[in-house]
């Protein structure tokens, strides 16, 4: 088994060899490490992308907009990913954005995952039949676990989810009531000795 340290170093060096700057190569190394840590085939897709990149041109998205379209070659997931991290605080204000014709969409995932951590919001990603929930770069939930992830996404949608509970008020109240059974009723004399007792708070 390869260690994550080996994965990161090799992905970084390969990215430099594929023509990216050292700074971007560092970002790729970090992202492929995350991808493999979460159980997604980052090394496989990166290798295929770099083999393909020798023969084909890919378009670079520099400034991320609400809708990002390429009429020519498909978009490079690396440059999109790095710019997503850099621009995530601006992109967040769009609530939702889409990218058409994106090559190797799996390679974008770890960048989005890191973006989720930076802004402290969950992200929901969908393309074709694949759906991913990115949880603050702590985990990625997916309906595509262990399935072949496509090498091209015709349209990828990225949604910024508001920080809301996953449960209903009723569920919370019910569970809270149960938790209250660990509390002890306080006597009057104990109340008199509690913090702040006997003082006025407007002193």
């Amino acid at each position: 088994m390869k260690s994550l340290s080996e994965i990161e170093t090799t992905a970084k060096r390969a990215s430099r060899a594929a023509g990216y700057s050292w700074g971007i190569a560092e970002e790729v190394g970090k992202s492929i490490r995350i991808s493999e840590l979460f159980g997604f085939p980052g090394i496989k897709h990166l290798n295929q992308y770099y083999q393909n990149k020798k023969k084909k041109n890919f378009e670079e998205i520099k400034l991320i907009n609400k809708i990002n379209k390429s009429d020519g070659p498909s978009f490079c997931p690396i440059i999109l990913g790095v710019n997503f991290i850099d621009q995530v605080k601006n992109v967040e204000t769009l609530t939702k954005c889409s990218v058409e014709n994106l090559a190797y969409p799996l390679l974008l995932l770890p960048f989005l995952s890191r973006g989720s951590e930076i802004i402290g919001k969950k992200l929901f990603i969908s393309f074709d039949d694949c759906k991913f929930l990115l949880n603050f770069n702590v985990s990625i939930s997916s309906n595509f676990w262990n399935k072949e992830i496509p090498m091209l996404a015709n349209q990828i949608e990225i949604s910024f989810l508001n920080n809301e509970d996953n449960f209903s008020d009723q569920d919370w109240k019910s569970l809270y009531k149960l938790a209250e059974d660990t509390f002890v009723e306080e006597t009057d004399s104990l109340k008199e000795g509690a913090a702040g007792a006997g003082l006025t708070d407007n002193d």
Partner: protein
Amino acid sequence: MNVELRDPNIIMKLTRLGSFHQSRLSFLRSFLSEFKDWKYKRDLFDLDQEGYGTAVYSFKKNARVYSLICYANKINDDERSDRVIATKWDAAFTLHDGVPLKDDIERLRNEVPKQEVGRLSYKELTLSRANKSVRVFDHVVESLSNGNQPNLELLEKVGYLYRTTAVYGSGKFGLADRFRIQNREEINGPFRLEMMLVYLVRQFTFDQVNHVAQNRNPKLAVKLDPEICRNLGIGNSTGLGMAPFIVNHPTLLNNWILSREIALKKIREIKIVKTKDKDLFKDCVKNSLKNITSWNTESEYQLKKIKLLLNDIRKFINFLDNEFNFQKDYPFNEIYLWLEKETCEECIEYVVSIMMEPYGDIVRPLIGQMSSEEEKYFNIPTERNVGDLKKILENKYSYILKINFKTKGSNQKFWFISKNKEEPRLANRFEENGADLEQPLAIARDIKKLYERLLPLKDNLKINQFLIENSDLRHVVRRAFIIEKFPYSEIQDNTIGENLVPIDMLRLKLSFFGALKFDPRSDKWLRICMFQGAPLPNELKDYDEQWVYKPSFKL
């Protein structure tokens, strides 16, 4: 009194960093201190008459066990090389997490001796190999087997029976990644498991030499005197592999240097120094003379430094004995200011290290702060603007911004990774091929380039916009925002200039390891000695913390 931390523009210069010495903060000393109440055991010692075979040593506390597995193999004299390109060694080692099963020992027997081309698993933590100092090893076997102790003069000259040539950890060749073990309290200090490996290897070398001597002449043989063992360490040959590490781990570098600087600041701020602390300090300074006079090297560069150091230390002892009064307030501050005025960089840093000896209570809490969660500082704060970045560069890289990179001399060298051994190397840009594959270690040059590119831009331009068209400088933009928070994270020198002495970078790291007797063999590699004078494993429960400064062989 408030003493300021020393200026990074002075301390982070390579000549200063290359003058650092071991101290109480050094990793091998903090390792001994952490593991002193662990149970040491030799679990397996299965060597043939010639000393070839397998041995296992362990440290155990509660449910936690770390085991060193040693494989000693026969090699021909012409196969023995300290170069990193070697493929065979007298012995190879791995530190295993837990108690190794027979299957583990067999699995590793096929992998550990191969080193870089072998595969380890997440159950192994560190990996190393070592060669005998044949001259010393054979002499010791010969002497012991004839019932005599070896010639101390020879032992003192060399200082060890074996030399390691690399110690690997942190995920290399399939070893466990750091994240798997990072929450263990006992290894909350840099390189602790690497130190454990080297320390246990040292014990293996004594056991092996005794075993071979005993088998050669069972009736007459004696064991190597423990006093002599204690005064032998483990040698190490170190090349350029270490140099990029300190550039590639800026927050870690900061935490090492900052701990040293905080310790010095706190010691300088002590108003009244107790008599016992003063006595301990003076004893260590005086006893340390033997570390200088027994420091053997053929390197003219180092000999010159040793000579200067020896002169200055003698001058300092004279000052302490005849001119200085410890009764005055803030005596260590006075001493420090005197050193700055009167002595060389090597001497200043030498005495700074010794100042820590009486102050375990100051040093101990700092040891826990010498690791770093580097991931936390990886993301670039791209919502900041160009004006912020300019200010950081002007404040934190003022010396570097003055370097003229238009001259050939300031661009002369480049760092690359060798294809045959995947190791960092340094070459002349104007004489060798490969500069187009340069590693991102020319930080000073790239910082200057970044500054020049920022100058014409408006201050309110966001970094995320700047990076769109300037991704070639992304690696140094990241570093600049790191140095803003971590003042000692950057070497304040040109690492590609014609005057670069790469061993300064190695010495910095080795001093934090706790190495003694730096012996440069060229400007690109050196030999050192580790654990010389250190307590033996069965003495760890109660040992003298100042063992580094105790007299060695009684000649």
